[in-house]
């Protein structure tokens, strides 16, 4: 079938127009679709966050009803977790994994198409309920029970749109599972000859492990929402005390999914950073093998820490002790990774182009988030932190200045490969510095108000939290606006406006993705390369 011809020997042109995107089975196109979708959801989720921060600018209810506010916090979380972060990483996986392992495409290209196209429909369903709510359709309209949708608030008091929410979650789950299966099959079966598992770039390793996590836990989420559905409509009592059920069971099932889920949202980030720092330090990644083992340990440990989200639920001592110890333990492999990145930088010859800036910011700020996570692990003190803004600060540090920053790093790093032009330097620098400062203005003071006693998911607060909330909101608006700069960067690259990028777009870059031209042609590695 394939020849070693240098020219594209297809006798038909690559499809164009709407059909190209609707029916694509090409990993690059599908990757592009995922990435644009993820960015759109990031902006949508961000818009909801703007509503939240506008209301929290001052004490008192100025703009929205507390009911609507709860809908904002809920859909913001859902959109960001399931619409922005996860699809974003899947998009990066789609674009980069075949290139990095020397494969012509993902192993299951048609399933790949389906995996993507489910998502816009899932989110149309979810977000339409927000529009309906905003324009007075009902009281309440959109889901309002937090992205964690605890029972019985969600099962017995949820609005009508809860059932659509369940459908939406099922669809997103199927998309994720199919995507994960695709990654595993691709990595196992399509590696170029000579590329053993321990020669793969770390990004591929972290995604491989993430994919296993996804297959293990997304079905559990599906189970949880199915149980929710049957409790709501088919007379079961999984979570209903009246029927002999237990609301706490919901929390166990949810967090059994939920905790590995947050590692799903960060392991690919670790892979990205592990690709970028060696490039710009001009030095190989320190401790490749231990990075692989650390990632695997984190993934395994992630299954036995779930109840640290439930310390206040009334668990007996043995339970809280076990989960406290396991949670503390998971900081060890995570710390190992951070130290390895620093050791990679050490005695390197560093330049600080945009991808490196984002990567270093990630290392510092993610570590900040990880350290507050360690504080949260200590159960007796967690009693004072749980459900306060201290937790909100923690997870935004690891998710925004962690996962999201890693995705910006990846974008700036790989945009030359995707588009053929270097990202606009001025806009990029503005985007970086503006985001860096505003993200800290936005989330750092949350530690303070959380410690001082402000609970989370609060539409209004006591007066002593007013000053910091004001600045947090300013930070939020600033951070939100800064992302428009990134939109501009992406649009310019998409329009191919910029300095032409060579195949090896960054001086110290190594890996199979840099052996193909920039922009990467529609088909690459139809003939597998030889890896020594």
């Amino acid at each position: 079938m394939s020849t070693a011809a240098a020219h594209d020997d297809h006798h038909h042109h690559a499809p164009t127009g709407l059909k190209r995107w609707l029916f694509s089975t090409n990993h690059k196109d599908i990757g592009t679709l995922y990435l644009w979708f993820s960015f759109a959801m990031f902006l949508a989720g961000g818009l909801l966050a703007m509503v939240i921060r506008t209301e929290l600018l001052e004490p008192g209810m100025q703009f929205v009803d507390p009911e609507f506010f709860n809908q904002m916090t809920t859909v913001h979380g859902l959109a960001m977790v399931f619409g922005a972060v996860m699809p974003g990483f899947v998009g990066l996986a789609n674009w980069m994994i075949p290139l990095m392992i020397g494969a012509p495409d993902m192993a299951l290209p048609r399933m790949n198409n389906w995996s993507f196209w489910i998502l816009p429909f899932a989110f149309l369903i979810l977000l339409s309920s927000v529009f309906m709510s905003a324009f007075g359709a009902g009281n309440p309209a959109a889901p309002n029970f937090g992205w964690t949708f605890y029972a019985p608030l969600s099962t017995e008091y949820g609005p009508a749109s809860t059932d659509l929410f369940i459908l939406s979650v099922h669809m997103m789950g199927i998309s994720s599972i199919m995507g994960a299966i695709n990654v595993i099959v691709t990595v196992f079966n399509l590696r170029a000859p000579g590329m053993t598992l321990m020669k793969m770039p770390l990004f591929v390793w972290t995604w491989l492990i993430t994919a296993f996590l996804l297959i293990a836990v997304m079905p559990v989420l599906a189970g949880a929402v199915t149980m929710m559905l049957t409790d709501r409509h088919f007379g079961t009592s999984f979570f209903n005390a009246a029927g002999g059920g237990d609301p706490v069971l919901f929390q166990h099932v949810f967090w059994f999914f939920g905790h590995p889920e947050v590692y799903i949202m960060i392991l690919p980030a670790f892979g990205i950073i592990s690709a970028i720092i060696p490039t710009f330090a001009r030095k190989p990644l320190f401790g490749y093998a231990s990075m692989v083992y650390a990632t695997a340990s984190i993934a395994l440990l992630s299954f036995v820490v779930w109840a640290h989200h439930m310390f206040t639920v009334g668990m007996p001592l043995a339970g809280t002790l076990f989960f406290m110890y396991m949670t503390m333990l998971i900081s060890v492999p995570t710390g190992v990774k951070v130290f390895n990145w620093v050791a990679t930088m050490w005695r390197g010859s560093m330049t600080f182009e945009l991808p490196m800036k984002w990567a270093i910011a990630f290392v510092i700020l993610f570590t900040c988030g990880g350290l507050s996570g360690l504080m949260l692990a200590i159960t007796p003190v967690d009693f004072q932190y749980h459900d306060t803004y201290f937790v909100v600060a923690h997870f935004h540090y690891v998710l925004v200045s962690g996962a999201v920053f890693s995705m910006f790093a990846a974008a700036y790093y790989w945009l030359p490969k995707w588009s053929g032009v270097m990202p606009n330097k001025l806009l990029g620098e503005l985007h970086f510095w503006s985001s860096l400062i505003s993200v800290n203005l936005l989330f750092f003071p949350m530690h303070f108000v959380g410690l001082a006693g402000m609970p989370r998911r609060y539409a209004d607060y006591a007066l002593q939290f007013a000053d910091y909330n004001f600045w947090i909101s300013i930070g939020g608006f600033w951070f939100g606006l800064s992302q428009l700069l990134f939109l501009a960067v992406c649009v310019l690259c998409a329009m191919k406006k910029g300095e032409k990028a060579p195949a090896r777009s960054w001086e110290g870059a190594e890996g199979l993705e840099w052996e193909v031209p920039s922009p990467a042609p529609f088909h690459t590695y139809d003939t597998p390369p030889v890896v020594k």
Partner: protein
Amino acid sequence: MSEQNLQQRNQRTLRKLLIWAVAMFGFAFAMVPFYDVICDITGLNGKTSTTASTEGPSQVVEDRTVTVEFITQRGEGVNGDFTSATRRVEVHPGEITLVNFFASNPKSSDIITQSIPSVSPGEAARYLHKTQCFCFDQQSLAAGERKEMPMIFYLDPELPRHINTLTLSYTIFDVTDRVAATNK
């Protein structure tokens, strides 16, 4: 490797992973009985047995007294009184004790109720044996009726020494609609 070979390998891996995904979906549901069994064995969530204890206590432990407290709670939708005749009793483990509860229905229609017990500390739950309890069955209350509902229990003689007070709470729920739905 040949194209066909690759396809076969892909399909095989795909099948294995799909099976695993389906298995994890099943696992989510399996968590329910797992949870119940673990809670049963350890009493973790404070749930007591839902059936009457048939064997009586092996002995009465005279040299210790345990305080058993009773609290009641109305679940959503229940608007009558729900109280216990006594707030607390001092018992010896193994001693059989009767406590009366009262529930009333102020509505003009009949209701069916289900009382759900909960014990604190949770670990004490499996040492609480009830030979008779209104919580084992649904209790119907006619319009305007006030009912006396007895509960007979004893504490297991093996009750750990560090537990000297335990609280038994009953929450009464109106399950009239649920019963109607299942009977349809």
